[in-house]
């Protein structure tokens, strides 16, 4: 049932009401005016044509000649004015505002010019008719009357207006016919393909990548040539009209990298056009007439750009046509990694670490429980029972800075007397990094390993210390047959505070913490899993002087660590974490709070490379909370 209802509701909310387009106000109004203007005109013209004996028996025999007719005239004129204002705004945007993120190709201008000439010719036709007949009800055709007044000033007489009317009717019809006929061949194709993609786009969670089924048997892994994309993906390339909303929010483009989701989809569409629809035939064809289809990455797309995307999902929340660039990136990476063995050295090193040591850090697996020394942590063995299974994750287990975070978290759990345990040496990496880097095989092996262990232990829910593990366990493990209740620690802590198990301020004397603090939304926690409130509640309960960064919530800016970029060698001039740190510096905060080990590391790196450690520090929300609680305990004794 949901399979039917979801596409229908999406069609009404996204294709007709176009809620996503309204996320930007100027283009939102512009598109609203053009879309509804054209829609009303099309419906009105259909009503008009129904009076002709074209569609017997669907004919209107007695079209009202007064009353409703006036309303009809008024509405049609209003719609025409809508279009003119809309295209006016579009011209202003393209000629004066000139946003960099917009595509500027011939069919953008073609569509705009056609959409300007159509209503102009229509109003001129109407004006000529009004000049000839000059009825008192002309006021209802208000725009036509204005045009009629202009033409009268120019000296058009009723006698000559008859001929002009015939001419402009032909021009108007010709323009309308051209408009419809050019829909499939220009950017106007989004009129058909964008709603189609809105109906057909995959309904899995945006945090879940598509699984490669039967990975042992499949001969083709990932996508090397344009023909290897799925039908729905090819449809989505046709649905893209290069509006640049993805590029506006993309951390890579904003940091000066050459990757942009818009250019990627444009390149894919171009490859589809060249290879499938209109092969150039300039000697590509071999003797048997089969045109060789080029490899996409390398031959038509810059290999370097493939390894820039952080899979932060900012573009996913903006695209009005529901195109999913990060998924195409991962599909292309899969082919490069699994079929070609062609990847940057740092990616190869990380994947080798995961294969050999079972974690991307390349630390010996026997160090996995080092963080728990001196803490009261129960290691669960198969058959054990616990209320909460704490999935620590590689970052917290191997990274010195992040060990402190999970230690704080464990102390808080003990304080709240939560019945929890960890897997210890049995815990494998969740496989997220490998999957985002395109190595589906490592991911599936690790996921199977973890699910096997999970199934041997009796627990109510899993709590993870990392949004990446959280997203993978929650959204991707069900694909592998592991469906569990998964929580991020921020949800858990927020629950413990509201249950009264963790008391943040026993004394009314407790002062607000000094200095301003801002919470940085992790992409995998916020955008992918809609957890925005819980971390903020914790910080508010911890009595911090919390402010918001300029880019927050769904519009949050990536730290640059996702999608395997944590381990990549990057150009120091285009580092995303420096850009994000600047946001925090601009907000003049003293502390940035994060809820993700990657974000923490990336901020730390940025603070070090910019040498601003005296101005700003980065802490995990758990550390902030723990500090507050111990302060509170100290005061009340």
């Amino acid at each position: 049932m949901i399979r039917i209802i979801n596409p229908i509701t999406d069609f009404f909310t996204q294709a007709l009401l176009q809620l996503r387009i309204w996320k930007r106000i100027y283009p939102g109004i512009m598109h609203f005016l053009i879309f509804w203007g054209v829609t009303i005109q099309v419906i009105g013209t259909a009503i008009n044509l129904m009076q002709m004996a074209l569609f017997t028996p669907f004919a209107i025999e007695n079209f009202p000649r007064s009353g409703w007719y006036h309303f009809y005239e008024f509405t049609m004129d209003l719609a025409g004015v809508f279009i003119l204002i809309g295209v006016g705004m579009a011209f202003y945007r393209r000629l004066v505002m000139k946003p960099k993120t917009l595509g500027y190709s011939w069919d953008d201008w073609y569509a705009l010019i056609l959409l300007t000439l159509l209503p102009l010719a229509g109003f001129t036709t109407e004006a000529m008719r009004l000049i000839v007949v000059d009825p008192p009800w002309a006021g209802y055709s208000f725009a036509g009357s204005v045009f009629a007044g202009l033409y009268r000033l120019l000296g058009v007489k009723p006698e000559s207006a008859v001929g002009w009317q015939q001419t402009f009717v032909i021009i108007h019809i010709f323009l309308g016919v051209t408009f419809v006929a050019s829909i499939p061949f220009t950017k106007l194709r989004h009129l058909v393909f964008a709603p189609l993609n809105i109906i057909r786009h995959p309904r899995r969670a945006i945090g879940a990548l598509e699984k490669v089924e039967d990975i042992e048997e499949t001969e083709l892994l990932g996508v090397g040539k344009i023909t290897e994309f799925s039908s729905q993906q090819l449809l989505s390339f046709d649905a893209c009209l290069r509006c640049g909303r993805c590029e506006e929010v993309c951390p890579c483009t904003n940091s000066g990298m050459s990757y942009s989701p818009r250019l990627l989809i444009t390149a894919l569409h171009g490859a589809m056009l060249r290879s499938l629809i209109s092969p150039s035939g300039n000697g590509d064809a071999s003797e048997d007439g089969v045109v060789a289809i080029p490899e996409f990455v390398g031959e038509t797309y810059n290999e370097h750009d493939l390894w820039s995307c952080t899979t932060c999902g900012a573009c996913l929340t903006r695209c009005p046509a529901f195109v999913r660039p990060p998924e195409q990136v991962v599909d292309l990476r899969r082919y490069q990694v699994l079929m070609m063995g062609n990847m940057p050295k740092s990616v190869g090193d990380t994947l080798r670490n995961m294969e050999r040591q079972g974690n991307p850090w390349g630390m010996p697996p026997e160090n996995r429980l080092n963080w728990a020394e001196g803490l009261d942590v129960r290691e669960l063995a198969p058959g054990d029972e616990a209320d909460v299974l704490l999935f620590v994750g590689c970052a917290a287990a191997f990274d010195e800075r992040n060990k402190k975070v999970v230690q704080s978290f464990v102390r808080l759990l003990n304080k709240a007397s939560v019945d929890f345990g960890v897997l210890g040496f049995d815990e494998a990496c969740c496989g997220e990094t490998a999957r985002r880097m395109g190595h589906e095989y490592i991911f599936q092996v690790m996921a199977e390993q973890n699910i096997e262990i999970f199934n041997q232990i009796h627990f109510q829910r899993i709590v993870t210390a990392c949004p990446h593990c959280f997203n993978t366990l929650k959204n991707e493990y069900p694909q592998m047959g592991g469906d569990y209740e998964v929580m991020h620690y921020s949800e858990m802590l927020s629950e413990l505070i509201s249950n009264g198990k963790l008391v943040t301020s026993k004394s009314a004397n407790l002062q607000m913490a000094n200095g301003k603090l801002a919470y940085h939304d992790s992409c995998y926690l916020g955008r992918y899993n809609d957890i925005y409130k819980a971390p903020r509640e914790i910080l508010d309960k911890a009595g911090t002087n919390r402010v918001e960064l300029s880019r927050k919530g769904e519009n949050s800016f990536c730290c640059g660590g996702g999608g395997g970029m944590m381990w990549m060698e990057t150009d120091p001039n285009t580092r995303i974490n420096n850009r994000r740190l600047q946001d925090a510096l601009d907000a003049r905060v003293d502390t940035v709070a994060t809820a993700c080990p990657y974000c923490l590391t990336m901020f730390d790196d940025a603070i070090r490379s910019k040498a601003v450690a005296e101005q700003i520090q980065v802490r995990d929300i758990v550390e902030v909370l723990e500090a507050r609680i111990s302060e509170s305990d100290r005061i009340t004794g």
Partner: protein
Amino acid sequence: MKQLPRRLIFIGLIVLGFAIIFATGRGQATTLPEGQPPNWDKISTLAGGPSETVSGENLAALPPPADRDPCLHCHIAGEIVTEWSPISRWLVFGAMGFAFIFGISRNFIVWRTRELWHFRWMYHLSRITAILFILQVITGVILVFLHSSTLEIIVQIPVVIKAIHWGSAVVLLIAALGLSLAGALLPWYQRPFWAMLFVTGVIGGALAIANLSFTYLYAEWHIPPPPSRLYAFHVLLIPIGIAGIMSIIFIMLRKRGETQ
């Protein structure tokens, strides 16, 4: 290709459904005096003058009456119909529809097959021919049922049925003629030379086709004479023959594979 028969039946059923709906309707082509100029004296008097009322309303205050204005925005002085009107309308709107459907279906096919369009589109010619033939059969059957051989009863045949029957026939005819002409002209000696002369003569008489279309689409089309040998050929023998050849082709295609 495996699904072709089922798909053809499906398309046929849809067309049949529409055909039945259309068949229950009545043709209502507006017959108007050709290109009469408007009565300017009257219009200007009415526009400026105090009042000439028709059933209580000022005539000038109303839009032109329905029989003078079949398309409110296009025609001031009534619809002007020449013998070229129907064919030019079908050409303009048909070309638009064709371009639109061609473009959209091209992309659809490319997404679905993920094969080169360049080689795909030719496969569809046979399907198009088959669909046109089915259209012919369906609309033809309706026309046979609707028409009466007595001249006293004038049955109004829905214009759309006639238009579809006629239009698809023209496409089939041109396709067949074009192909056979191209084939016949390959060897260049006496017979193709005379054939060429003949064909140019036919094309020179294009106005006759326009006249025919006008008759079929708009005029009160009179019932053809009682069944003759020619009529029997037209509705029985030739279609059955074509269907036979087509089924042989389809059977061979299915047995021997789609394209080779």
